[in-house]
């Protein structure tokens, strides 16, 4: 609000910003840094933004935080359910083992995921200060649904069906360090122990 300015001072204040010589300082055009360029009109996905977080510097006594690299590929021409089987295969493996398994898999998505893993490895070494490219393991690997398109599929006798052309996204998170040891499978003894513990945790409620 300009209520603190008197009438004449307000008019002077208005005209003061309208002076053109304030905009053109020493012959150069005024900076365009506030205007968006064309690249930022595309929506940047949440997975890509995860690479941008910056942690505060660690204190001397803290254990070293392992590097995390998020990478993804969007709109792969493959079904998300079929891609999920490959993502489930490489979850928790070291990157070398994952690349070996994908190289000899017969699936179409295996080639795509291999490219994504190699790109992510390259990113890790170049930008994310990872020392050894083999010292990475796959912490998370997910698939997501891409944009589907409906098309007509012709059957005999003039019948038609509507088929959907499905695409998927693939997301991977690499973490520095050896892969974590696999969890031992739950035995009947563990389940029994948990059950007994649950029985022991029961108390009386709504009483004195």
């Amino acid at each position: 609000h300009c209520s603190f300015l008197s009438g004449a001072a307000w008019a002077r204040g208005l005209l003061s910003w309208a002076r053109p010589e304030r905009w053109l300082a020493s012959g150069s055009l005024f900076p365009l840094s506030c205007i968006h360029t064309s690249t930022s009109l595309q929506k940047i996905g949440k997975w890509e933004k995860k690479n941008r977080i910056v942690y505060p510097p660690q204190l001397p006594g803290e254990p070293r935080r392992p590097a995390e690299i998020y990478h993804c590929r969007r709109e792969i021409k493959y079904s998300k359910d079929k891609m999920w089987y490959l993502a489930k295969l490489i979850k928790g493996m070291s990157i070398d083992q994952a690349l070996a398994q994908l190289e000899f898999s017969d699936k179409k998505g295996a080639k795509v995921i291999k490219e994504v893993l190699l790109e992510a490895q390259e990113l890790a070494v170049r930008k994310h200060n990872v020392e050894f490219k083999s010292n990475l393991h796959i912490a998370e690997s997910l698939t997501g649904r891409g944009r589907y398109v409906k098309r007509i599929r012709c059957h005999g006798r003039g019948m038609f069906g509507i088929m959907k052309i499905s695409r998927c996204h693939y997301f991977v998170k690499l973490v520095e360090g050896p892969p974590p040891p696999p969890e031992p499978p739950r035995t009947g003894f563990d389940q029994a122990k948990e059950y007994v513990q649950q029985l022991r945790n029961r108390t009386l409620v709504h009483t004195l």
Partner: protein
Amino acid sequence: ALVVVCSPLPRLRALLQRCWERLERGLWPGVLGGQSPPWGPALAVQGPVLLPQGINDARESSAEAPSLLESILWMAAPKKRRTVEVNRCRRRHPSKLIEVKRNIDVCPECGNLKQKHVLCGYCYAKVKAETRLIRMEMHKKEGGPFNAPTVETVVLYDGEKPSEKDEGKRIIERARKRPSWFVQN
């Protein structure tokens, strides 16, 4: 979804036939009240309604060979929608997951990965490329189709001379150093 259109008249006929069978078996005793058999259905319908004799004949003939349009009514169909939990149990069953392959080794020649019972892909591609060049030289020497000589062929690289054993053989020259994997006899 498939769009299927069929005429309603055979269905109506089948329905009428079934009603008549039930009457014959005495499942509707209340309807049959002392009327002289055989008697036709008491409904007035449009279309080709058959006389009692006609219906009997149709029933006998259809009992021999049921048509496709009638057997559509007895096809198996799901009763309830499969829930996503049931679907997940089926799709994520361990038998449906991809198995981890344990037959991957390192090729001792080039260091790439290879399956134990399969040739190394990189070495095979290398040999294939060299073979292709040798075959191109052979084609140039022959000049046309059906000119393959009846003698053996020997491939010689830079700085190699044909030995006494290669007397009558056809010699193919390759203008490069001998690759380490191509052993000379």
